[in-house]
């Protein structure tokens, strides 16, 4: 008879040791803090840099474009200027006309070097005629600034097109109307209320259809990957430090393994809860709070639990079967490939959520936790499919934990050479 109380004592101690470890503290506390600081710093920096005046020179060989550019800059500056006592909303654009001879060009380079100019632009004459060889040249010492070149490019495009239409005598507005592309509005299926009135179908939201399932799968993968290999290392460390035999004097191998598995699973679910809470606030900030429903949270916990127990038992077996770190890395590779498998076919799943491939993937026990839940957020997954996925995964988890118990019992005391997969199978059979 196994003693569940011992299993829980081991689990509680494992969890307690884990939450006091540097890895956990960094993962739980420091990472969100660092991310927050990083985002805040980025925003602050972005505002600061964007408000810097962009002074640039224009060498206009067309003789007609600069005036449009200067007018566009004036409009832009008026639009970003501080209003009602608030701050400016963008940088001022300050173009100045320059000569294109060698001496003037040298002077522009000197001014750019002295940081008096952000850049200077050369507009060749052929650009107004649509000469395919003609290219606008943008010179700058700040290669990473995209704001100014993007503004110049957009503004120039408008000005040059206007000039070309004016020169050819064609009505631009008419051409634009005739060449306007057909747009396709992607909508959800329409529905009707109780009175038979059709409701307005909502537009398909790319973030909702792609971002949300991807985020859920990533979080589930993170929960498993952040803890299961750690379990393997912990077992190996106990083997190498001979702590295992001391423990086996007090608990059975199954109680020991079960406790470790349960403790680690508890910690990973704590991590998941923290990140899920964070995800909720992020989702709410972007207007997607309705995505995180109670049923999604319950399903997330169930799949995270199954995934953690299933892969935890695989990794714990590897740790017990190996006798050095190098061997664990080698044996871990196939297991990691199995964990990552859903990621490899994720694009196909998104494109065809009701295809045979997706259905099969959702029913492979090692992939179910990572495929089924995200799938439910993008299509109506039949109940039988969800039930079959959970049942198969649960049964496989029980089988894996049982097999891991047998491997753990034999492997834990084995020193020297690491076991092969064949030997591990024999241990499972022999018991």
């Amino acid at each position: 008879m196994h003693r569940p109380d011992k299993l829980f004592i081991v689990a509680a101690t494992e969890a307690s040791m884990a939450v006091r470890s540097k890895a956990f503290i960094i993962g739980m506390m420091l990472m969100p803090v660092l991310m927050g600081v990083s985002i805040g710093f980025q925003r602050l920096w972005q505002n600061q840099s964007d408000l810097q005046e962009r002074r640039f020179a224009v060498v206009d060989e067309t003789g007609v474009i600069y005036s449009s550019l200067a007018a566009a800059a004036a409009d832009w500056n008026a639009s970003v200027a501080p209003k009602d006592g608030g701050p400016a909303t963008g940088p001022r654009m300050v173009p100045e006309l320059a000569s294109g001879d060698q001496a003037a060009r040298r002077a522009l380079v000197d001014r750019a070097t002295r940081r008096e100019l952000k850049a200077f632009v050369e507009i060749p004459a052929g650009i107004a005629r649509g000469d395919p060889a003609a290219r606008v040249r943008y010179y700058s010492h700040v290669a990473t600034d995209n704001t100014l070149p993007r503004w110049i490019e957009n503004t120039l495009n408008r000005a040059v097109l206007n000039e070309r239409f004016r020169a050819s005598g064609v009505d631009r507005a008419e051409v634009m109307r005739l060449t306007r592309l057909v747009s396709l509005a992607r909508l959800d299926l329409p529905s009707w209320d109780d009175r038979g009135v059709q409701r307005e179908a909502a537009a398909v939201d790319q973030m909702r259809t792609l971002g949300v399932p991807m985020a859920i799968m990533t979080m589930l993968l993170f929960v498993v990957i952040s803890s299961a290999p750690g379990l393997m290392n912990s077992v190996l460390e106990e083997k190498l430090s001979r702590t295992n035999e001391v423990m086996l004097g007090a608990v059975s191998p199954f109680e020991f393994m079960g406790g470790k598995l349960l403790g680690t699973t508890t910690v990973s679910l704590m991590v998941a809860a923290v990140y899920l809470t964070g995800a909720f606030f992020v989702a709410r900030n972007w207007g997607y709070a309705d995505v995180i429903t109670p049923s999604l949270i319950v399903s997330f916990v169930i799949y995270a639990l199954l995934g953690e127990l299933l892969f935890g038992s695989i990794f714990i077996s590897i740790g017990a079967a190996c006798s050095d770190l190098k061997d664990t890395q080698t044996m871990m590779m196939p297991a990691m490939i199995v964990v990552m498998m859903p990621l490899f076919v994720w694009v196909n799943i998104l494109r065809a959520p009701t295809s045979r491939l997706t259905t099969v993937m959702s029913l492979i026990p090692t992939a179910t936790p990572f495929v089924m839940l995200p799938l439910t957020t993008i299509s109506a997954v039949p109940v039988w499919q969800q039930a079959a996925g959970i049942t198969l995964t649960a049964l496989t988890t029980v089988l894996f934990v049982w097999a891991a118990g047998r491997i753990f019992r034999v492997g834990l005391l084995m020193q020297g050479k690491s076991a092969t997969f064949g030997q591990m199978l024999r241990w499972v059979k022999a018991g």
Partner: protein
Amino acid sequence: MNAIEIRGVSKSFGDTRAVDDLTLTVPAASTYGFIGPNGSGKTTTLRMILNILLPDRGEVAVFGDTSTRASRDRVGYLPEERGLYKQMKLRSLLQYFGRLKGRSGPEANAFVDRWLARFDLTPWADRRIETLSKGMAQKAQLIAAIVGRPDLLILDEPFSGLDPVNAEVLKDAVLELRRSGTTIVFSTHDMGTAEKMCDRIFMIFKGRKVLDGTLDEIQSAYGFDTVRVRAGGGAAALAAMPEVESVNDYGQMQEVRLRGDAQRFLSQLAARAPVQYFEIARPSLHDIFVRIASPGADHASP
């Protein structure tokens, strides 16, 4: 009531038979010494008693229960290869083992504090295990083994690697447990310790039981075939004597195993050199161990 009953137990690892048809009874409240050369099957036997390993054949009963798991809380174990969670603090670790052994929190705490004080470890109670010296860690390990107040304490090489002071502290602790009724089983390579501390001694060699009994019974089986002698010229004086089977030279004294008569040997020796000390004795446990386990020895019988 017997603490341990091993009946016809065999255990193999691959092609190697570690324990071969072993039968052994350890009475309750006794001190039983397990001796044998490295790789003879001692640790495997201890692990089977603890149910860490399962026998291929035969049966092991602890306090009459063949499912040792059920009686695990009555057994304390100090393994030969020692390891503790290095990141845990000493007191927390010992309390953890106390809880695993079914002791309530306050009970385990009081016990741990008492034994930490006894081993002068109180100042280290809130430090991490990794900061302890080897001697301290070994004492901590013994507390971990006894924190459940076991009825049976199994110690695998408990005194190895300890300095004499720490070895003495541990020995006193073990004897105190023995006096309080705990059955002590320990394996050792130190024959002197086994002779002095054990009520009964069991020797395993190549997986088979070759000795089992009190020291007196074991020595009696070998008879008075040993003399301890100090003579002028030392071991050289014993060279090529027909009565001498073998000589164990300790420098200042020689232990001689005789193949013939002790009185005839004495007269032959006296004719060769002045004899300063002569004692007819039974062989020491060390001598018996060497006779059995040395290469080419006939270990089957005394």
